[in-house]
């Protein structure tokens, strides 16, 4: 019985490893046709689902020779395929091109806006909870902030689209669905998470340190700036990066607000698209190369958020528990 229980518990723990490897492999296999077709140029290509006649597809490919040299066999095989295609069917000399630049840029920019918006407020809230408020107030405000984190993301989307976005677009001009509104609502979403983790890091500062600073006549601001911040700096940076990792993969709130159009935003108030939204919106009707390209985007997102989160975990949050 003891042995059996030990085996079961070991296998359940290993399930996590299997799941992660499984996600990675499955995404890779499903993305393979797109990876073989577009290679790494996928990342810098801003065309999505565009019919192009074949000679045109070759011109940009030839311009980008340095990049292509890196891709060696695949790229050469591709060109062979293209030439063959051309020989085979003279009438339909078009092919559909998928590139991931727009969603990738949209993801990064909306996350950046969210971060810029949420960071100062989250820091303020964390200081309020950890240092300023009395125990009771801190507890209730803390619960309220955590409730904000518990609200499902689709609710943020509904609220953002019908109540928040009109105000933003009246203030800053531009469209109601745009990079800016999506980024700001994303900021509201990561705000409580960032504040909670930052507060926890700040709370690790030993009371003795704070008290000796107060005893020397330091103000609250000086204690936070010169004692708490230096002490918990590492944890705070970690929590910011962790929040960034979460923001990258957020789907539903952004789906309502970013506009879901495949075009690079010229200004901050233009609509565009992000990787999770591209997957949410286009997965249903996609097939073949389109579906595979969406998996390619998913793979990029997964690697990106995995890298960001583990970076935060291993370099900054080694000691604290989240």
């Amino acid at each position, binding site marked *: *019985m003891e042995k059996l229980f030990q085996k*079961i518990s070991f296998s359940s*723990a290993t399930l996590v490893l299997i799941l992660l490897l499984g*996600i990675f492999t499955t995404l890779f296999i499903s993305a393979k046709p797109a990876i073989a077709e577009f290679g790494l140029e996928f990342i810098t290509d801003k065309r999505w689902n565009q019919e192009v006649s074949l000679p045109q597809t070759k011109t940009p490919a030839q311009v980008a020779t340095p990049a292509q040299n890196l891709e060696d066999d695949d790229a050469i095989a591709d060109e062979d395929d293209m030439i063959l295609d051309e020989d085979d069917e003279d009438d339909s000399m078009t092919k559909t091109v998928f590139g991931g630049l727009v969603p990738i840029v949209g993801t990064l920019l909306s996350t950046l806006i969210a971060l810029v918006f949420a960071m100062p407020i989250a820091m303020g809230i964390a200081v309020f909870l950890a240092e300023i408020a009395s125990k009771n107030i801190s507890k209730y*405000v803390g619960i309220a902030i955590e409730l904000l984190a518990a609200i499902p993301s689709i609710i943020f989307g509904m609220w953002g689209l019908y109540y928040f976005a009109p105000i933003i677009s009246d203030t800053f001009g531009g469209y109601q669905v745009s990079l800016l509104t999506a980024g700001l609502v994303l900021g509201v979403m990561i705000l409580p998470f960032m504040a909670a983790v930052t507060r926890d890091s700040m709370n690790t500062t030993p009371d003795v340190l704070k008290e000796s600073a107060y005893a020397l006549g330091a103000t609250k601001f000086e204690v936070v700036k010169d004692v708490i911040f230096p002490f918990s700096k590492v944890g705070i940076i970690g929590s910011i990066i962790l929040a960034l990792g979460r923001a990258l993969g957020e789907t539903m709130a952004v789906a309502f607000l970013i506009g879901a159009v495949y075009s690079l935003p010229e200004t901050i108030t233009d609509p565009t698209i992000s990787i999770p939204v591209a997957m949410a919106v286009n997965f249903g009707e996609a097939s073949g190369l389109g579906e595979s390209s969406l998996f390619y985007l998913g793979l990029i997102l997964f690697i990106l958020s995995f890298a960001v989160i583990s970076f935060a975990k291993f370099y900054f949050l080694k000691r604290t528990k989240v």
Partner: protein
Amino acid sequence: MRLTLNKIFLAFSVISALIGLGFLAWILVTLFIKGFSSLHLSLFLNDLVDGGLRNLIVGQLVLALLAALIGIPLGMVAGIYIREYGRGKYPELIRDLSDIMVSAPSIVIGAFVYSFAVAPFGGANGFAGVIALSIMMIPIIINTTDSMLSLVPKELREAGMALGASKYRVILDVVIKAAKVGIMTGILLAFARIAGETAPLLFTSETSNYFSLDLTDSFPSLTVSIYNLANEPEKSSRDLAWAASFILTVMVLVINLFGRYLTRNKK
């Protein structure tokens, strides 16, 4: 100068807290006004096809409960392994990986499940939705179990061992009992979180306008239907989406608060 700076800083901090509370209040008041005015008893008696929400509420709860049924035991047992059995670097690795999994993009988990539980079977099915949600739940449960077990004093384990109980008996009868409340809170918070998820269900179980408990076909989901309804042009659809959002939020927040209440009472 120092004191002015201090005052500005304190004011900024208090204002930040008010902004945070303001957003929560804004969202909740919006939901209450929009949702409550569209709320009727008939919503709970009819299915979506007749303009009600009954099938969606039941469907969402069934999906989340089944996911919990898979996720809770697996997550707890894995958490027990990490804290009680693991030796060397391996449990550390699993702990870190499950930490990362908690923040993994939910839409990617949906795509992962799609490729092995939807595509090969030719269409959306409830099982796929359950799998996707349970994959989201497992790492959260692992983390809670792990950290709650770490709070149980070593002496309790030693006392159990001294009585001659085998290790797994000590864990199940003593350690888990001691950490029961904390784990229960973690489970409720995790349940509240997955019950409100949309992205992992979008292309796994999708949603359905009809009442159904058949997991082999597309399965009614409150969250996915909110997304669909909100995108429809008719005002009646959007009103229905608001009512559904109100119900969903009340459900999620009540479970969440109940979970927190449990631990608060114990302290």
